[in-house]
């Protein structure tokens, strides 16, 4: 009797087993002491999964994160300790992105507001499009201007890098598209004209489907979607079907093209022949933006942010396989998820490859939703709204997680760091703010811009953040 009491005091035990996010059981169920800490859990989990390198994990019991030790979390959840407790583990990024803290360079040059900025997928180039009709390439290492590309006749509205970083396409307000070579700053081929009104969005074919990076799609205000061949400089396919301006286009990894429009629908097209597969209806007003949970993977193509980015192989077949494998790693467990943000203040979560019914309707914003992004690991969803707040949602279920407040005016754009632990947001109140996603709190406030911030981007290797806005200056932020 005495002996029994003693053991209860010192080590209360619990029968547990580890389960992955997708429900795969790892190893046998084991007897764990209740005061087992997160660190110890990680060690055990690594041993069970037979990882050679130590991988960081997050653990959950009944969707409550274990922050210090098992006991504390169990108190909260009050589950039956008699049976086997399932501990869900989540892989975290092996590397950590350090938060950017200061402005290392403000690069003037544009004569008008900077409308779009973008790092190349390999993180070596930086391009910006502006209202002064030029596209500019910037040298990241010396933080100085590299090339000024003239060719457009009106505001350069959107730019997009090819997934192998060999080309940049830019679309202007007159409806012309130009392909640029980032190495020389010269125009490749001729100007692609065909759209009757301005270009709203551009998207490249994923690397794992075609490592040559030839095709890209463009969406326009004139309700058309066009697929272009960047080598022959001609239109391959014109897809018509929307009733109003197409606001956003995404070329998914499964051979589908997703397009959002002001006619309140999201349409899914087959990329190979442009046949309409599905029309996703549900929104009550313009659909402004789209995001895929594979966005980050599709963007970086075959580049690996963990390894040295210079170690790119020349073997296209190999890198294509690598890209495909990584894409499957993200998309296979739950499929390609799509989220759309709208003027009706809501977001919809879709599984566009299977169903035309939404998985979830995410409500809570009090103004229109301007930007939506998935985190690179596909677990978190961030939506920026004109109601001055950013909301975080669980990407799997659409459950609300946090509201990030701090901006005093409309939030225009958000960008995630590569390790999904941090996020930056650019706003109309002329500041950029850095948020910690684990705590859901403001990490650092980054003032500096003299006017509205229109575009922000976090480089794929996580080292730098770039922002541009109405004050015509491009700013680089670093640790």
């Amino acid at each position, binding site marked *: 009797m005495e002996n029994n009491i003693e053991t209860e005091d010192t080590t209360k035990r619990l029968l547990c087993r580890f389960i992955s996010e997708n429900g795969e059981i790892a190893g046998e169920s084991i007897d764990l002491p209740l005061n087992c800490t997160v660190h110890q859990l990680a060690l055990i989990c690594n041993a069970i999964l037979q990882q050679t390198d130590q991988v960081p994990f997050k653990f959950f019991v009944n969707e409550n994160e274990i922050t210090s030790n098992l006991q504390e979390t169990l108190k909260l959840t009050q589950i039956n300790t008699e049976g086997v407790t399932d501990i869900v583990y989540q892989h975290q990024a092996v590397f950590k992105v350090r938060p950017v803290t200061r402005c290392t360079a403000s690069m003037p040059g544009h004569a008008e507001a900077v*409308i779009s900025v973008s790092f190349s997928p390999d993180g070596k180039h930086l391009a910006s499009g502006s209202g*002064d009709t030029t596209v500019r390439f910037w040298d990241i290492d010396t933080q100085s201007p590299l090339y000024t590309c003239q060719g457009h006749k009106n505001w350069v509205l959107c730019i997009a890098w090819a997934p192998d970083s060999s080309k940049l396409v830019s679309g202007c307000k007159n409806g012309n598209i130009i392909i640029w070579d980032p190495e020389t700053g010269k125009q490749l081929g001729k100007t692609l004209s065909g759209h009757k009104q301005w270009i709203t969005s551009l998207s490249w074919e994923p690397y794992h489907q075609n490592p040559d990076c030839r095709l890209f799609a463009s969406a326009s205000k004139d309700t058309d979607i066009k697929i272009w061949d960047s080598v022959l400089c001609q239109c391959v396919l014109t897809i018509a079907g929307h009733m109003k301006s197409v606001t956003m286009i995404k070329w998914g990894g499964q051979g589908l093209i997703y397009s959002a429009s002001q006619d309140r629908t999201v349409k899914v097209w087959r990329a190979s022949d442009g046949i309409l597969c599905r029309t996703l209806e549900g929104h009550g007003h313009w659909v402004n933006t789209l995001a895929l949970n594979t966005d980050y993977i599709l963007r970086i193509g075959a580049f690996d942010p963990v390894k040295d980015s210079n170690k790119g192989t020349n073997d296209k077949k190999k890198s294509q396989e690598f890209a495909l494998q990584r894409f499957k790693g993200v998309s296979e467990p739950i499929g390609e998820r799509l989220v759309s943000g709208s003027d009706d203040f809501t977001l919809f979560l879709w599984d566009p490859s299977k169903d035309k019914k939404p998985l979830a309707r995410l409500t809570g914003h009090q103004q229109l939703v301007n930007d939506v992004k998935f985190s690179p690991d596909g677990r978190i969803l961030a939506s920026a709204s004109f109601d001055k707040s950013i909301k975080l949602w669980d990407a799997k279920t659409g459950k609300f997680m946090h509201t990030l407040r701090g901006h*005093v005016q409309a939030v225009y754009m958000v960008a995630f760091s590569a390790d999904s632990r941090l996020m930056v947001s650019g706003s109309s109140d*002329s500041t950029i703010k850095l948020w910690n996603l684990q705590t859901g709190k403001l990490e650092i406030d980054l003032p500096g811009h003299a006017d509205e911030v229109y575009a922000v981007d976090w480089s794929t290797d996580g080292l730098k953040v770039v922002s541009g806005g109405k004050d015509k200056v491009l700013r680089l932020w670093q640790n």
Partner: protein
Amino acid sequence: MPQNEYIERHRKLHGRRLDYEERKRKREAREPHKRAETARSLRGIKAKLFNKERRNEKIQMKKKIKAHEEKKTKNVSEKVAEGALPVYLLDRDVKSRAKVLSNMIKQKRKEKAGKWDVPIPKVRAQADAEVLKIVKSGKTKRKAWKRMVTKVTFVGEGFTRKPPKFERFIRPMALRFKTAHVTHPELKATFHLPIIGVKKNPSSPMFTSLGVITKGTVIEVNISELALVTQTGKVVWGKYAQVTNNPENDGCINAVLLV
């Protein structure tokens, strides 16, 4: 009157005479000389009429030449509109708004010196006698230490009047104001904004402390409604404005925002 087109018919049948082209050329070449001869020889009213007609002719000619030239050089380049917007703002009517975003250090320095670049630099000084009316008191109305402010005043929220014995300055309720019509000079728009306080009445520091508002007075107004932000992303809520009218005559306060 000819009964039909016999001249044309003849021309079609037989053609023109052989020297037609040459004669025509010569006649045309002679035309300026003939015209000059007429212009030289005409006198009086006929000369006037002739010259007037000729002038109009020349104007028309020049216009035509210019129009032709413009047509040739039309497709050069259209001006690119200013104020570029990102795609997501193109279909929304974004109202243009001038930002405050002033340099805070500069502003602090200005504030310290108590000097502002004001729209009305020279203001007519208000004499004490003009602003303050003597109020006689006492049983036989012999005492004259009370003053009544005859101009518009701003009185803070939590102000309570003192007992009559100690109240030296009376600020009549009818002349108290809480709001002003403030014009933003860059936006060219006027807003109805609450007053926060009187910063400076140039006539006298005593008027400033009393909250007297006359033409040229610098007042602080609450502009949070305009949603202007500073460079660090904070909402500006208090900003100075100068009064541009005579509120005591007009019954309202008009002011210009100092940016």
